[in-house]
């Protein structure tokens, strides 16, 4: 078989194929539910209900989507420049660490503490990604593996701090930090509803990233470097410097996920702060075709699957990992569907 470009793909192709990818994912999820001995329609119904069936469920989905918007944006920005940042998990924890450090150690009043925590988080996340990117730009060391390995190093580092200097003396022996004071937490968007301003910050970040991409020189340079680094260099774009700027932006965005989880939701730092938000961010970004505003939509979709599956597994005997499989399947089907909107398969 061979791939042949489709000259002018019709609407049926550009919308139908991605819809087919989602449909195929639903089929896979149904098969998984049947494997578990459950009724697939009931299972899917419970997932949808658990994700959006009530005000409580919908707010839970928005809360879960918040860190995914940040990590999704971090990945989208980096992948656009073909900078393979697989280390959003490490950058998230770096942001969470700085948030807790500033929040618990400095004794700043709330209105000062919140921006200070956010800025420190962004700087820390940017710094964590700077290492691998400098190794890539200066020495040609592949950043996929280095950023991946940094995730493990960072988690061990946090574990060390949580069992050492940062350990909460009142924590009953659990490795967790002290909580940041109430007035340094992110306020709720609407009083009485469990949705904090981290979500608002995530939406604002998505718009800012979108503006950077379409309206600024940096956005143009990032696209040029991603499409063809040789051509970009020939056109006088400082490829290395653009990579570094992209990395700072990407690492900072991922760190905001950690900031928002600590300051908006959890209050303290633990080793299970992120159940893989950094990795799921890759799926979120790819499903959004690396578009910053699309990231918001796909983060809501992915968060809905996870929240819905959590709620479903309490009612039906289907393990929650059905969500992880569905998300991975959706990713693989979707990249294939997107390819087939532009190419057709011919024999020979």
């Amino acid at each position: 078989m061979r791939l042949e470009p489709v000259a002018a793909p019709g609407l049926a192709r550009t919308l139908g194929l991605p819809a087919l990818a989602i449909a195929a994912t639903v089929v896979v999820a149904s098969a998984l539910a049947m494997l578990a001995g459950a009724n697939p329609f009931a299972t899917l119904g419970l997932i949808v209900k658990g994700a959006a069936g009530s005000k409580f469920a919908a707010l839970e989905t928005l809360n879960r989507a918040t860190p995914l918007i940040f990590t999704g944006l971090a990945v989208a920005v980096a992948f656009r420049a073909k900078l393979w940042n697989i280390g959003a998990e490490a950058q998230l924890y770096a942001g969470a660490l700085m948030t807790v450090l500033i929040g618990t150690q400095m004794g700043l009043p709330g209105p000062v503490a919140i921006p200070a925590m956010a800025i420190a988080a962004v700087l820390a996340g940017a710094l964590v990604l700077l290492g691998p990117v400098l190794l890539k730009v200066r020495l040609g060391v592949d950043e996929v593996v280095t950023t991946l390995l940094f995730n493990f190093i960072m988690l061990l580092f946090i574990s060390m701090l949580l069992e050492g200097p940062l350990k909460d003396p009142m924590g009953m022996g659990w490795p967790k930090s002290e909580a940041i004071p109430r007035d340094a937490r992110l306020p709720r968007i609407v009083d009485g509803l469990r949705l904090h301003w981290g979500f608002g910050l995530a939406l604002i970040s998505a718009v800012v990233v979108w503006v950077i991409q379409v309206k600024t020189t940096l956005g143009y340079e990032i696209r040029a470097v991603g499409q063809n680094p040789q051509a970009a260099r020939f056109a006088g774009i400082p490829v290395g410097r653009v990579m570094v700027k992209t990395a700072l932006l990407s690492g900072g965005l991922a760190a905001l996920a950690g900031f928002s989880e600590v300051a908006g939701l959890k209050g303290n730092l633990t080793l299970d702060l992120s159940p893989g938000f950094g990795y799921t961010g890759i799926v979120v970004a790819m499903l959004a075709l690396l578009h910053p505003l699309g990231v918001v939509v796909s983060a809501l979709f992915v968060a809905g699957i996870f929240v819905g599956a959590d709620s479903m597994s309490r009612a039906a005997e289907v393990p929650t990992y059905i969500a992880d499989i569905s998300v991975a399947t959706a990713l693989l089907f979707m990249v294939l569907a997107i390819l087939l909107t532009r190419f057709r398969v011919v024999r020979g």
Partner: protein
Amino acid sequence: MEIFDILVSASFWAAVLRIASPLIFATMGELICERAGVLNLGIEGIMVFGAFAGWMAVYAGLGLWPGVLVAFASGALFGLAHATLTVPFGLSQHVVGLGVTLLATSSAYYAYRLALPEVTSPPRIEPFQPLDIPVLSDIPFLGEALFSQTALTYLAFATVLIVALVLYRTPLGLALRAAGENPSAVEAQGLSVTAIRMGAVMVGSGMMAVGGAFLTMSAFSSFFFEMVNGRGWICIALVVFGAWMPGKALLGALLFAGFDALQIRMQQTPLGADIPYQVFLMVPYVLSILALVAMSRRAEVPAALMVPYNRGER
């Protein structure tokens, strides 16, 4: 002084071979994929699934060697999914690889929960037992260090030999290497780049799964979540460190396992007791990064690595 005592103990060297074994299988698997031109980031998840599949097969009563085969087959199946998307369709090997890792990992966890819904701790299986090689295992020191391993460890070393022989001494190996260096030349010989690359990814993925199965079937005799713990990513670094050559990659795996065995033993010394254990656990990951940095200038990357091949397109 303590380091010296550790280095002259036979049990240390036995541990080096044991720790190296899963890395050797998976590194050879990744090496085959990359020599054919495909970066396989599915490695981490495929190792998880292999660890689960082999263990589950033995738990279900299939026996140890059939368990290894089951693990290999499961890995090859994920390899087929990876190869289908990355070779004929030429999709991003980064994205597909990470997707396969997510898919394989979550599939293993899902299957685990389905198979054992009620358990709080995973059941143990009867793992591979150490196999003393006649005569050789009676040699003082060396016998205990090298020739009292499980059958899977011997198989790991045999795998390196087989991979090296096939790569450098057979027409198949030549075709595979050419597919990773100059695919149009392969096509000019009347061979199919697609078939070679897909085959390489399937066999390589099978080997990764056997590497994972070593953990459950020879090392820990049980399946735990997160037991692979980044070993797959380390193997990718080992392939680079070994400059895409089986012998050098083996050397890298042994060196790496040596440092790992050393840090485990250092933790128990008086000096080690003063240092947080997390520092020791960081050693493998830091070493992998250092290995990549050390080789960055000299590594000879297969020319067509990560370059999809679409016939009739120049």
